């Protein structure tokens, strides 16, 4: 597809995005080669592989990868494909091993990816096959960010923190301990399921599409939050009811919906269904305030790190990866997070709450999926594809001089989605990393 075609499909100035980018197979194939081979992708969490030899098979785009801790304790991410004939060398979702043996011809790799065993090596290869050169294909760069593991195939990609930019402090809110200590999270479960929708519907949903709240009315009326039994309705407690909500579009294509607590920043009673949790979270809140001071006013809601990693920051709390399967099929993975040193009762309670909310059986996620899959299905038709989606909400209603960086809106906005698709178009045009990080946008703003 010609490079400038993508700018036609994504018309940010007028606020239209073509349905083709959600259903067209050629666009999808180009996405796999231009977006998913370059952007930093979240592949898992270190708590899934705590011991030497532990592995967790993950995905980068459509491709299977192995997240593995080697004998020395170092973390690696490899393409899950034998260098001989391409068979998967690991067909389990997770486990512990000292070797990855290809079932086809038995080429065998150690946990640091080195080709170690080749049947009939002396007889058929004269003992001179270059085993080093035939190691498992490793990602170009890998970063362990507060326990979450990220990787890219692009050796020219910027380091992960540069890629994250000002979205960092928002992602931190999901990964840091509830009492403000850095990191310290662990995954207490992973849900995986396939749904018939384009992956971008899910990614966009968590950029900060607060406008879709009406689709969750039924859940809100029932009440599934941590104080539901005490009579509170809604999906979660009202921890942010006095906060100033902010919706931020970052130049790298990331987007977040966070909240700034008022000056007083008092604890709002939550987790009322369980006195142990209520006490634990009240304690965490006060500790966090002491530890972070003014910075404790920032609390998370949701966000998406371009292209396909989303997070829920608080109630519930977790990371999500939206793995593309086809233009109209996506595999959703939810990694449910808790503080590693949280009381067992808190972990158990949160696990159940997270499942009530998210994942294939989660009531809120079911609402979302219904929208994504019907929107995908209704956009595949010949007539439907002639009509682009409307992204004109809150045009221009943002500021660029806010302390949080990026384009900050104080009202519900599609500016984040416009930013996401604008950056998506940059990737599809094979733009350089300066543009992908938003340098050209920042220069243009500075010039203006």
């Amino acid at each position: 597809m010609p490079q400038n075609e993508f700018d036609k499909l994504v018309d940010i100035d007028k606020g239209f995005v073509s349905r083709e980018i959600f259903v067209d197979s050629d666009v999808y194939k180009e996405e796999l080669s231009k977006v998913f081979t370059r952007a930093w992708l979240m592949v898992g969490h270190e708590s899934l592989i705590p011991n030497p030899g532990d592995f967790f098979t993950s995905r980068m785009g459509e491709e299977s990868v192995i997240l593995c801790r080697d004998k020395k304790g170092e973390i690696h991410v490899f393409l899950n494909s034998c260098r001989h004939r391409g068979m998967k060398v690991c067909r389990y979702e997770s486990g512990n091993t000292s070797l990855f043996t290809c079932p086809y011809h038995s080429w065998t790799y150690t946990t640091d990816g080195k080709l170690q065993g080749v049947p009939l090596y002396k007889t058929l290869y004269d003992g001179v096959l270059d085993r080093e050169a035939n190691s498992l294909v490793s990602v170009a760069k890998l970063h362990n960010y507060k326990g979450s593991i990220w990787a890219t195939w692009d050796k020219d990609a910027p380091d992960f923190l540069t890629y994250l930019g000002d979205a960092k402090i928002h992602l931190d809110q999901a990964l840091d301990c509830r009492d403000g200590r850095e990191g310290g999270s662990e995954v207490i479960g992973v849900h995986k399921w396939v749904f018939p929708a384009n992956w971008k519907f899910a990614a966009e949903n968590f950029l900060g599409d607060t406008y879709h709240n009406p689709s969750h009315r039924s859940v809100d009326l029932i009440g599934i939050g941590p104080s539901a039994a005490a009579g509170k309705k809604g999906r979660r407690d009202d921890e942010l009811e006095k906060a100033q909500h902010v919706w931020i579009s970052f130049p790298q294509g990331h987007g977040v919906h966070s909240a700034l607590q008022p000056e007083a920043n008092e604890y709002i009673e939550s987790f009322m269904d369980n006195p142990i949790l209520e006490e634990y979270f009240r304690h965490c809140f006060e500790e966090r305030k002491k530890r972070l001071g003014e910075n404790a006013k920032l609390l998370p809601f949701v966000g998406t790190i371009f292209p396909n990693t989303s997070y829920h920051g608080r109630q519930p709390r977790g990371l999500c990866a939206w793995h593309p399967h086809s233009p109209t099929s996506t595999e959703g993975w939810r990694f449910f997070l808790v503080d590693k040193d949280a009381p067992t009762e808190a972990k158990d309670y949160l696990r159940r709450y997270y499942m009530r909310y998210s994942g294939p059986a989660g009531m809120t996620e079911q609402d979302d999926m219904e929208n994504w899959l019907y929107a995908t299905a209704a956009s595949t038709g010949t007539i439907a594809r002639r009509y682009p989606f409307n992204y004109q909400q809150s045009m221009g209603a943002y500021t660029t001089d806010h302390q949080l960086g990026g384009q900050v809106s104080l009202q519900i906005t599609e500016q984040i989605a416009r930013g996401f698709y604008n950056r998506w178009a940059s990737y599809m045009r094979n733009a350089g990393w300066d543009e992908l990080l938003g340098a050209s946008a920042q220069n243009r703003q500075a010039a203006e």
Partner: protein
Amino acid sequence: MINVLEIKVGSKLQLREGIVAEVVENMEDGMWLQVKYLEVPKNPGEIGAIELCHAQDIVKVSGAAEGV
């Protein structure tokens, strides 16, 4: 057919290409053994090397090593 799972650490193996090796670890996957080369007629410099040895490379299990 040799059942690799039954081969104990310390066993001596006769491998293809005239190689003699001692088992240092059974990987317990039914295919691979970690062995130490004791005799390598074509390349004596490899004596003492630790290598993975596949079931197909084993000609004969010659017995337990001395002292094992």
